[in-house]
């Protein structure tokens, strides 16, 4: 995974591009994200995240944008998959920043079943690692689909 700061004013003032590659296959891009960070106040930092559309042509045009940021110059939030309520709010801790979505806010209909559910992600950031844990939940809070029981940890190279 690579995260690179880019200049993309259409998304905000503090914009980063994130690209995830398949294990052992750096040329196979599995996820693309744009993160815009907003300082809500002195103790709350908001991550406004954008998911790229599942369009192979769009993906081919924009992959590798951490090396060639010009690939993103014509995109805007309107091109992204809509994610209302899915912002992550971070609080500074002792040598780390702890973040989470507001529980229940990132709601949508589950693919295939159409069941109303919500996604809930938690994140932790230090100078050396990025960690996250997420899952999909029914509206009553029970687990709809547990993506992982354990935290995913990414070590900075």
């Amino acid at each position: 995974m690579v995260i690179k700061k880019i200049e993309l004013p259409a998304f905000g003032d503090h914009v980063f591009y994130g690209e995830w590659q398949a294990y052992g296959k750096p040329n196979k891009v599995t996820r693309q994200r744009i993160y815009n960070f907003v300082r809500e106040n002195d103790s709350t930092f908001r991550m406004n995240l954008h998911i790229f559309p599942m369009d192979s042509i769009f993906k081919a045009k924009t992959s590798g944008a951490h090396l060639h940021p010009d690939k993103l110059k014509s995109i805007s939030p309107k091109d992204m998959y809509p994610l209302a309520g899915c912002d992550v709010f971070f609080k500074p801790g002792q040598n780390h920043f702890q973040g989470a979505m507001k529980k229940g806010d990132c709601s949508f209909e589950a693919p295939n079943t159409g069941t109303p559910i919500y996604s809930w992600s938690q994140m932790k950031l230090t100078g050396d690692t990025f960690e996250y844990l997420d899952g999909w939940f029914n509206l009553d809070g029970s687990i709809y689909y547990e993506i992982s029981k354990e935290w995913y940890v990414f070590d900075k190279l």
Partner: protein
Amino acid sequence: MKTKSLFFALLMFATTRVLVAQEPSLIAKQQQLDAQWDVFLSHWEGSYDNNRQV
């Protein structure tokens, strides 16, 4: 009237002294908070190894 004016003059003087005394620590605190935001932003950028689960 003179007593009242003197009272307000003293009050103004005391308030100013307190604010001036507090200013350096308030500035330092704000600088610390600004630095925390800068650290937060700087932590994101980089290349990461493939994930491991703990």
